[in-house]
Every structure is written in structure tokens, then in C-alpha cells.
């Protein structure tokens, strides 16, 4: 402990030098990193940020960058506060020889706030598994890329899984499904899909908001106890998730009737509840926990050289793996753009093209070391989501275990909703829908 304190004092003394932004050479690709390593959401923000940072380090160390272009990144701490997130973006967007390649906000609130700004700045937003669900329509949301899944996809997969358990969508009639959600744009996203599905199948919905940061949920769970819903969907983040599971234990609500979104299905969400979390489920953003092929390279090129951001044992955790995937998709988008524009640092506009033409096949996934972690993804102007599949995982008290087959969200339900919501947004913001060619 003493050593740690001395270390902190020394770090504070030399911090100005140690953390000063490096001078950027012309053959470097700058990628900003909006992170939250402190504050109420840090337990979830830290592993994700570590996964992203380590993937960039790996690409630089193993491949000498992306086709010879080194990645340079700078973290900006925003504590999951939307205003500070926007500040970070503004501060970093012009760094590097070509400005920010893309931005990963890891916050639906910041994604909402940046949606208009990035259009002007010509910097794409990668909101993998979050953001506006209708932003998958690339003709309206030309700069937003909610890759691998939106909240409508997530909630649809959960409804499909519940229907399978009940042996048919028609068996949902008369059932009661509650949504316990973070009272923010993020938490409210699945309401539209659940309302639509409720109309189609005749189940009853119950929406229960929890205010930030989500540590006070007693009244919410007393309502659940009193109304006895058949299933509870959890749309939380940070400490709200573990508090929900603990409160479910406190009111005796069965954990195997609970389904979290992929942001409510990581280790920090279940571990604090200890044995109480056993049986709790969450939909996956394709992947679950565990190390895989890529980790051999990570160990050799990053961790064995003491360059790792996390502890080695933590590199198989869900949010760390998600950070790796997110960074990989960004790097592959830059690589795709380079194939067209040349092996040099890409502008945000060029990376946007790369994202819109991203096509990662099963073979390429194997080459990249992500075999068994994710499925192929193909993005287009009409579909900025690129893939909408997921599975259900269940916490067995020690580990996450996949407990279902693959599901794909039902586009017969979602596509018309996307079309309507995107058209409404376009009318509101006076956007003429259309695909960008460059």
C-alpha cells in the first residue's frame, strides 16, 4: 500500500509530462478514446476501455499498425456524463494528421448528443450495441453505425426466447412482462419494440424507471412483487444492474425469470450479488466471456511485454472482450477504407465509407483470431447494424454459460419501425435521406 501511495505521489508530480499528448507524425492514425475509468459507471467502463486500448497496442506491436499506419490514441475521461463526453469529443476531434478516424462514445446519451455534430464534422460514430435503434438506417443516419445490434434487436431476441420457453408466440397472450430500465434515453429504447410486440401477441407490459445511478430500487421491486410479472427485462448499466439483482433476491423474485440486455450481462453485474445471481440471464451481443485465439497474440505481443491495460486474468471478461471486438471493427473499417483510398491515415469521411462497406466474412473472422466469438457482419447504407443475432447466456454462480441457440431479430417487426422512426427524425431535422457515395 505504501508503495502504491508513493507511486501515486510520483505519478502526480510527473503527470504533466507522462500524459502529455505525443507529437503526431504524418503516418499515424488518430483514434480518440472516450472513457469512464472513474465514477459510478467505472466498474463497467474500465474493462471496455482496456479491451479497446489493448487491441490498438496489439495491432501496432504485431502488425506495425494498419498497413504500416500506426494507431495513436488518447483517452479522455468523461465519467459517463453526457456534457463531459461532448467536451472530450470536441477536444480530440481534430487531433492527428487527419483528425479523429471515428468516435466510440460507449454512452447512448453522448451518442444522441453527437449525432448532429458528427454529421457536420464528418466523423463516424461506432455505437456497437447501443444508440438510437433507428440509426441503423444509413440513408438518414449517415454517420451512425450501431454495429452488431440495436436495443430493438436485443429486446426482440429476448421476447423470442421467452416465447420459445412458453412454446409459441401465441402463448404470450395474457402474460405480463415488466421492464426495469435506467431512466435515460438508453433505458427507454426498448419500450417501442416491447409495445409493438405486446400489441401483436397480447401480452401486458409494465415499465418501471429507475433514476440514475440506480442504487435506490426498493420501491421498484416492491411493485414487481406486488404485480408479479411473468418475466422481468433489465435495461441497466453500472451499479444499477447488481442492485436490481440484489433487490430481486430481497423480494424473492426468481432470477431465472430475469433477462438483461447485453449491457446488463457482464461480470460486474452479477458478482456483487454472489450466489443470488445464479440463474440470471442476459442476451449476448453475440459473444460471451472467455479467452480465444486472439489472446495468444495478446499475450505474446502485449502482456508478456508488460504493456497490458488489464490483469491477464481479466482479459476473458465480457466487457473486455467487447472492447476488443469494437476496436477490431473500427480497425477493419480503416483497413477497408485504405483498400480504396490508399495505405495512409484516413479521414473520418473515408472511414465512414469503410464502415459502410465493412464486410467481415467467417474466413476473415478466423484470420483475425475471433473465431467462435462472433458471426460475419456485412454493413450497407440500408443496414448500418450489419448483423442482428444473439444468444442467451446464464450466470451459473461462477461463470456465464450460453444456454440457447442463435436467434435473429425479426425484421418483419423491426424494419417498419425503423423506417417510421427514421423518417420522423429526417422530417424533424430537415434531412433529405440518401446514401453517401464517398
Amino acid at each position, binding site marked *: 500500500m505504501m508503495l502504491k*501511495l508513493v507511486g501515486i505521489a510520483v505519478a502526480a508530480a510527473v503527470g504533466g509530462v507522462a500524459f502529455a499528448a505525443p507529437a503526431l507524425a504524418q503516418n499515424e492514425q488518430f483514434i480518440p478514446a472516450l472513457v469512464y475509468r472513474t465514477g459510478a459507471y467505472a*466498474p463497467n467502463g474500465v474493462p471496455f476501455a482496456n479491451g479497446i486500448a489493448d487491441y490498438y497496442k496489439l495491432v501496432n506491436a504485431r502488425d506495425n499498425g494498419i498497413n504500416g499506419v500506426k494507431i495513436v490514441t488518447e483517452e479522455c475521461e468523461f465519467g459517463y456524463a453526457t456534457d463531459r463526453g461532448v467536451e472530450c469529443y470536441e477536444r480530440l476531434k481534430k487531433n492527428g494528421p487527419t483528425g479523429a478516424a471515428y468516435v466510440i462514445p460507449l454512452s447512448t446519451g453522448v451518442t444522441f448528443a453527437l449525432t448532429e455534430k458528427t454529421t457536420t464534422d464528418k466523423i463516424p460514430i461506432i455505437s456497437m450495441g447501443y444508440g438510437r435503434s433507428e440509426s441503423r438506417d444509413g440513408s438518414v443516419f449517415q454517420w451512425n453505425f450501431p454495429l452488431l445490434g440495436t436495443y430493438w434487436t436485443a429486446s426482440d431476441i429476448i421476447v423470442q426466447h421467452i416465447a420459445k420457453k412458453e412454446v409459441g408466440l401465441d402463448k404470450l397472450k395474457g402474460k405480463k412482462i415488466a421492464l426495469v430500465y435506467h431512466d435515460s434515453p438508453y433505458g427507454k429504447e426498448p419500450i417501442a419494440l416491447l409495445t409493438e410486440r405486446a400489441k401483436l401477441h397480447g401480452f401486458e407490459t409494465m415499465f418501471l424507471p*429507475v433514476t440514475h445511478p440506480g*442504487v435506490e430500487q426498493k420501491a421498484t421491486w*416492491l411493485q414487481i412483487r406486488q404485480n408479479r410479472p411473468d418475466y422481468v427485462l433489465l435495461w441497466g448499466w453500472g451499479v444499477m444492474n447488481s442492485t436490481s439483482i*440484489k433487490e430481486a433476491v*430481497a423480494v*424473492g423474485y426468481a432470477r431465472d425469470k430475469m433477462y438483461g440486455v447485453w449491457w446488463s450481462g457482464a461480470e*460486474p453485474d452479477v458478482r456483487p450479488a*454472489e450466489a443470488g445471481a445464479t440463474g440470471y440471464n442476459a442476451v449476448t451481443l453475440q459473444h460471451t466471456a472467455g479467452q480465444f485465439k486472439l489472446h495468444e497474440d495478446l499475450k505474446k505481443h502485449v502482456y508478456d511485454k508488460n504493456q497490458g491495460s488489464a490483469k491477464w486474468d481479466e482479459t476473458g471478461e465480457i466487457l473486455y472482450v467487447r472492447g476488443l471486438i469494437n476496436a477490431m471493427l473500427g480497425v477493419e473499417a480503416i483497413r477497408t477504407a485504405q483498400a480504396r483510398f490508399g495505405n495512409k491515415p484516413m479521414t473520418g469521411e473515408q472511414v465512414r465509407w469503410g464502415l459502410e462497406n465493412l464486410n467481415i466474412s467467417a474466413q476473415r473472422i478466423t484470420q483475425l483470431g475471433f473465431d467462435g466469438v462472433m458471426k460475419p457482419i456485412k454493413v450497407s447504407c440500408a443496414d448500418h447494424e450489419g448483423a442482428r443475432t444473439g444468444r442467451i447466456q446464464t450466470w451459473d454462480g461462477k461463470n456465464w454459460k450460453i444456454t440457447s441457440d442463435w436467434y435473429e431479430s425479426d425484421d418483419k417487426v423491426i424494419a417498419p419501425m425503423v423506417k417510421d422512426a427514421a423518417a420522423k427524425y429526417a422530417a424533424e431535422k430537415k434531412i433529405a435521406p440518401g446514401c453517401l457515395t464517398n
Partner: protein
Amino acid sequence: MLGPVLETLIGGLLTGVLYALVALGFVLIFKASGVFNFAQGAMVLFAALSVARLSEMMPLVVAVALSVVIMIVLAYAIEFLVLRRLVNQEGIILFMATLGIAYFLEGFGETVWGSNIYKINLGIPKEPMFFFESVFPGGLLIDREEVAAAVGCAVLVAALAIFFQVTRVGRALRAVADDHQAAQSVGIPLNTIWLIVWAVSGIVAIAAGMVWGSKLGVQFSISLVALKALPVLILGGLTSIPGAIVGGLIIGAGEKLAEVLLGPLLVRWFDLAGGGIENWFAYMLALVFLLFRPQGLFGERIIERI
């Protein structure tokens, strides 16, 4: 209907006790030094982090004892580095100083102890108890952890009451609370008294931190629980220990009943978009009290003759 209402009321009252535990720390320091200690929430977080991280390396009892030492050292540091230099300054200056302490403690605590969610296991079973199952369908639910916390809180309040009323130090604390300069003029060592009261407040923070930490897991959000103590203080008065308890109970019960009974009605009647009301309802309740009784339920009425 009676069952759910009763259950909510009991749950609210028990949560109120937990709020009171945090409010108690504010009251102690305000009574003795006239300082509104904005850092109380951060102290709760720091104390909880100390107990949680130390208990990973040693038995819980030893971790708590060591945390008491840490909080006393912290109290000394605050007294020596901050308060001593601000004696007889305006209240707002002292308040601003505690604001600085709060941010420092939060950041420093996370830097030293880490920002994950840590566990404090008090060994209390998490499963609920059910009573009167033959009277109410499903019975009346009581949270064991909250009952244990309420008992702990009662013991702590009794100990503090004895300390304040019976002991020599307690009387000196009250004298300092009435008038710093007058107390100094009769030989009461102001610095020592402040050190004692901050240390006692630190120990109360350990109790609050352990209870909240066991309930929520120990992480940054615990410091935000202090915000829930503010309406309790408005209601109960800044200078009254019984006020903190009664205020906590009213706020706890009021906000839970409002969320469960009033919230759905408001949404239905006014076709609102929804949203948890318990957070702002507590402040509204406190505000209404403030309009009619500015000194709070048990606070001392301030009369100044011109």
C-alpha cells in the same frame, strides 16, 4: 391492497433508518462545529472502501478496527490541514472547504482502493422473511438486512446520545457547538474537540458504509447516497439527532409510498412519459416542511433580537 401498502411502508421505514445513519454524520459535525460537511458522503464511501478492501486481506473485525484507525487519521488530517486554518471563518468558507474534501476523498479513495464493485459480507442472510401469510396473500415481506441495519442504527444512536449527554467530552462538544469563541475562552480546546467530532463522524461513516456496502456493493455510488440525507436534514433539522432519525423515517416511508402509489397514478392521470418520482419527491416533501418550519422538525429555532 392493505398488504402491499403495509409492505411498502415497512420497507420505506427501514430504508429511512439507513438514510438516518448517513444524516447522523452530518448532524454530529454541524452540532459541534457549525460546518455543513458536504464530504460526509465521500467519507462513507472512503470508509466502506477501506473496510471492503482490507477485509479481503484479513478478518472483517480486524478490517473494521483498522478502518477506525484510518478514519481517525483522516479526521486528524482534515483538522490539521484544513479546519485549523479556517477557525472563525464564515460558514460558507468552511462549507466550500468540505466541498473540496469531498472531491479529494472520492478521487483519492478510488485511486488507492480501486473503482470496481467490492463486497462487504456481514453474514446476514439475503433471503426475505414473510409474516402474516394467512392474513395477506403472499405475506408481508421484511428484508433481514434492513432489520439488522435498523437494530445497529438504534444501538449507535443510543451510544451517541449517552456520549453527548453524559460524558465530559460530550458537554464540551455541545459548548463548542453553541459558541466557538465562548468555548475557547473557558479553556475548551477547540482543535481537540473538532478532531474528536470528525473522528466520531468517521466512525458513523464506517457504520453507514458497511450497511450500504453490504446492500449495494461498495463502489462510487455510495457517496451519492449522501444526497438522500439532505432532505432528511431539511426535515429533521441540522442540529438534532432525534430529528435525523424521525426525518429519515418520514423521507424513507414517504418516497417509497409515493413511488408505488402516487407514481403510477400521476402517469395515468396526466398521460406522462413516466419516470421515477421517489428521488424528487423526497426533496419536495422536505421543501414543503421548510416553508412551514424552516428550522426543521426538531431544529433549534433561531431568534435574533435587534
